[in-house]
């Protein structure tokens, strides 16, 4: 046996805490909120809700392809989510009717994914984990993936923040300021693909879009600036994750949907409390 390096006490405590599945679950939920808060705000501002749904549903197809080809599942999801997002963006640029196109693509991606998964032995049994998430089974590796992905997304959005906001307000204005709205849209697309790959373990493919939209929508009535809305959305997402976990333990409900239930409750409260603005 090799000699062990002495480990400082606080770090030892942290490592011991990570042994607790509940701590890992809580950290995964909070980590995910860091990415879904700001990205979800853009999804709301740019009316990309259905776009997010289509990308998230494509994740199941990514799971199937990754399992069939022995690639890392997160990688498979990211590739398929990115392919879906680029397909949608390309069709939109060609002038396809977006409502119908997204409806076709979102549900087809889900159906193709479910059919493809049925060909992979041993997956059919825990399919619900991919659809609804399995946050209580988050491993240390998963946790690192969630936080790594969230920090990449947060960094990407922070870097492009001013340009993204300008392009969201008015693409011509962005152009005239020397920005390229297409490049900013690509940044959002990449961020969305990463978030889908990161979020599937936490809330599942079916509810990723909800995790993006509901906290941001709940944050809207509390905010006067875009930055405030993004920060509130992070907070509401984190509170929803923790509250959902608590609800799940207390009432033995599925964790992923419980998180969304709490978020929806917060949305109802902030929407009811907000006075109509002049």
């Amino acid at each position, binding site marked *: 046996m090799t000699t062990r390096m002495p480990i400082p006490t606080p770090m030892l405590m942290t490592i011991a805490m990570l042994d607790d599945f509940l701590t890992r679950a809580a950290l995964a939920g909070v980590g995910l909120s860091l990415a879904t808060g700001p990205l979800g705000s853009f999804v*709301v501002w740019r009316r990309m809700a259905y776009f997010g749904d289509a990308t998230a549903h494509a994740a199941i197809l990514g799971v199937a392809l990754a399992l069939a080809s022995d690639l890392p599942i997160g990688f498979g999801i990211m590739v398929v989510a990115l392919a879906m997002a680029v397909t949608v963006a390309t069709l939109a640029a060609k002038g396809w009717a977006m409502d119908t196109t997204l409806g076709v693509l979102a549900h087809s991606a889900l159906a193709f994914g479910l059919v493809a998964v049925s060909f992979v032995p041993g997956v059919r049994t825990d399919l619900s984990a991919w659809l609804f998430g399995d946050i209580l089974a988050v491993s240390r590796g998963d946790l690192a993936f969630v936080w790594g992905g969230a920090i990449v997304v947060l960094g990407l959005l922070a870097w492009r923040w*001013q*340009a993204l906001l300008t392009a969201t*307000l008015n693409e*011509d204005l962005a152009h005239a300021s020397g920005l390229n709205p297409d490049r900013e849209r690509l940044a959002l697309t990449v961020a969305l693909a990463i978030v889908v790959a990161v979020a599937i373990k936490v809330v599942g493919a079916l509810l990723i879009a909800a995790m993006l939209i509901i906290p941001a929508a709940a944050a*809207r009535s509390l*905010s006067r600036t*875009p*930055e405030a809305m993004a920060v509130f959305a992070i907070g509401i997402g984190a509170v929803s994750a923790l509250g959902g976990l608590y609800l799940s333990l207390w009432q033995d409900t599925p964790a992923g949907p419980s998180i969304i239930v709490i978020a929806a409750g917060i949305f109802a409260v902030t929407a009811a409390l907000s006075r109509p603005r002049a």
Partner: protein
Amino acid sequence: MTLIAADHLCVRFGGSEVLHDVSIAVQPGEIVTIVGPNGSGKSTLLRALLGIVPAAQGRVQRAPGLRIGYVPQRLALDRSLPMTVRRFLSLPVRVSDAAASQALARVGVPAVAQMQMSSLSGGQLQRVLLARALLSDPQLLVLDEPTQGLDQPGEAGFYQLIEDVRAQSGVAVLMVSHDLHVVMAASDRVVCLNGHVCCEGTPHVVSSAPEYRALFGLGTKGALALYQHVHDHDHGHDHAHAHPHSHAHDHSHA
């Protein structure tokens, strides 16, 4: 030195030619107004000059390092996006509070900084858009139908403001007007566009004429003027070129 120029510019969308052989140039300090009927390619010309739509033929030339302040026709002010006026002025380049309040005072809306963009009136919004465009210290202001939706005193007031800004800073102005006949009196040149340049001239300042008073009343202080179209060609019947002929001026389609 020319700030920006289109040189025999053609722009096509799909199979149809929206702009044909358009040449236009803006010199420093000059106010150029573009008029034309709906669908005449006015906005497309601005977008081509800004480099947003590509030229099918011909080319667009800009002075090296040209700083453009752009005032868009509309802003998609979705209620889902919270945005104070102060925050908006810091897009895409962050500006100091002092610079922001100075810019708002300059365009005559000093008290709106903490208001939400979506709660501004049409006239306030145009002035805030102008304030943002001025913050980059532009050499050229590009305005796309800035007075659409404003009433006549509002339009006159906005044109007066543009004139003042030009007088203070020497900025050149390239503006699309939604009105074929009533333009900014301070325009050095008016270009009438209908897929191509139909005619070009100076506005007819008629503030003392009785027709002018009948049209504009006395509240506009000479900021508006008539533009007299002198077209030397016919567009035929298949071409949508609907100049209303109700105004009291000569309008010759020879």
